[in-house]
């Protein structure tokens, strides 16, 4: 009945998470939520890395994951900073109201 969990399971899961994140990025108007969705994507990557590293019985993947987390933090920080600057001038956090630059 319950078969053992293989790496493939993790890959499927991460793929799914990636998709959810992607949808979030593409569909939500609120920039904050978009940033969150990006976090989701990075987590999907991490699931991949961890799965592989345990599959390969080495920690490289985990290290990689740590760095991914770091990057995620950094991006979030800068992103929110920019968001604040934007909000200061434009009074909005909705992605589709930001379209001065086009064509």
């Amino acid at each position, binding site marked *: 009945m319950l078969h053992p969990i293989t790496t493939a399971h993790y890959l499927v899961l991460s793929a799914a998470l990636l998709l959810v994140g992607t949808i979030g990025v593409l569909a939500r108007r609120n920039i904050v939520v978009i940033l969150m969705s990006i976090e989701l994507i990075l987590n999907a990557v991490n699931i991949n890395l961890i799965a592989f590293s345990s599959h390969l019985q080495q920690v490289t993947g985990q290290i990689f994951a740590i760095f991914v987390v770091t990057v995620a933090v950094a991006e979030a920080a800068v992103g929110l900073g920019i968001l604040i600057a934007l909000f200061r001038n434009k009074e909005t956090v909705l992605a*589709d109201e930001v*379209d001065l630059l*086009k064509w």
Partner: protein
Amino acid sequence: MSFLDSIWLIPLLPLAGAAAMLLAGKRLDQRARAVISLLCPATVLASFLLSAAAVMELAGKAGKAHEVILYTWVAGLPFHTADGSVARLSADWGFLLDPLSSVMILVVTGIGFLIHVYSIGYMGHEGGYYRFFGYLNLFVFFMLMLVLANNYLLMFVGWEGVGLCSYLLIGFYFHKKSAGDAASKAFIVNRIGDAGFIIGLLLMFAVIGSVRFLDVNQALGSGRFAVEAAGFGTLSLMALMLFVGATGKSAQFPLYVWLPDAMEGPTPVSALIHAATMVTAGVYMVARSSALFSLTPETGMIVAVTGAFTAILAASIALVQNDIKRVLAYSTVSQLGYMFMACGVGAYWVAIFHLYTHAFFKALLFLGSGSVIHAMGGEQDLRKMGGLKNRIPVTHWTMFVGSLAIAGIPGLAGFFSKDEILWKVYSYPGGSAALFGVGLATAGMTAFYMWRLMNLAFYGKPRMDEHTAAHAHESPRTMTVPLVVLAAGSVLAGWIGVPKLWSAFPDPFRTFEHWLEPVFTPVAAHGAPAAHHGHGVEWMLMLLSVAVALGGIWLARHLYIHRPHLPGSMARSAGGLYATLSNKWYVDEIYGYLFVDGLAKGGGSALAGFDSRVVDGGVNGAGWMTRFGSTISIWWDTWIIDGPVRLLSFMVKAASYPMRVLQTGLVQAYGLAFVLGVLALLAWSLVR
């Protein structure tokens, strides 16, 4: 140095005169006209004397030919002739004096000199005096080049040159639009002929490998080429093409239309260029190519028939013309037709003989008419003349002689040559009774229209207004002297070509034929030997022609003196025919419709449209979409000039917008594009 070696000076002297006019003419014209009046005729006289001397020397020379080569003019590169042998595209700057060219240069310089003298008086009161003489000298130069050249290519130089001068001289009164038109018409129609000439030359290069007269004759005579009696071969084509050139220059059907219009030029010009010399260049050229034509009987036939047709056509038109100069112009065309008839049947010396006599009396008639016009204060319409006999006696008597001569009254120059032509046309193997008939009819018409002219101009009661009548006076000496000289010529010139029939006269009276004999390949080369005709036939034909001539004269006198009302009624009764004749068989109209409007203008504009629309690419769209198409005119303009580039730029711009529209400025749309890209790449690598 001998005169023979200095023949290259003969053309050069008039050129010097022309150059002088071009450089210093204007100043001379203002300060010292006399200088011009002396200098220019002097150069021609000089070259006449030189020519005479050279001819004398030539007479004494064995072989009767002398070639002087200055240097290689067109020193082209090697090429393959039709038979694969190698030849070099080359033409000398060289001169050939032989009996044929000697006759020509004497005529050109002699008549040319007389007409120069005449012009001193005739143009005395005209502006652009120096221009006129400059052109005239230039013409003499080119004409001499034409007849003295030792190869066809150099001959073509003169050929084009005289065309240019006739253009300049016809357009001399260039403030008159008609003059300009006539000039251009003459040049362009001639160009059509020249195209034929050029192709002929190319063929000559391709087949024979050289265009030097001596080479060509030697090659054609060498038996390398058989007589093309069987079919219409390369040589026949070559000959035909040369003849096309001749029809242009010598105003034969279908290219004769320019000559009557050329009468826009000053009368001396008409006399020199359009009667005595230039228009005979074609005849000279055909005669020069006798070796070729003798190998191509079929072309010869074409020549003869064309000549005959032209002769009678022009004569018929001349019957009803009212412009004194036009009558003479058509008469010239018709006389040239005679000459080609002679050439066609292979009686080249007779053609040249007629050319020579014709030069005298036709020049005389033109100058005379000029004198008449001069007296009438510029009036050229015969219907407004009449009764000038006593007002301008010298002109009258000289023209009287001229008219008799052209009509072919025995003893006068015209008689000998014309009668010889008729006889040869009848008797030569190439000829036929039909041709003779046409010739005879033409002779009758000639006599008629000439005497119609005489009667309308000199006899009967004056029809001009008093003012003109009061001022009608004899022309100055400078004009009458040439008339007299020419009249004398018209009487005497014929006596060196007395028919063999008149056995009473010793051979010296037939110098002309003997003189020209060495130049032309004997008639025997025409395949079939000359059919023998009895003396009786010849006598009969001669009398017949004389009778016809007299008949024509009588009819003219009857109609225009005794029954002046008749012509009008006849014209009315035969309305259609009359209209057709006076409208010159509508040839000009037909041509105008066919070529000028049809081909050039129509084709040109069609192509201009084609160029802008089709070639310039599917401009419909381009112009239609063009961004700054403000007013219709601009729109049309851009539409017209638009090209593929516009089309391209349009398409690019058009393509530019969709690409930019994707750039909505919405960050998530960008993300979407990104994801679609991912999808595309994944899918692609999946399906491969």
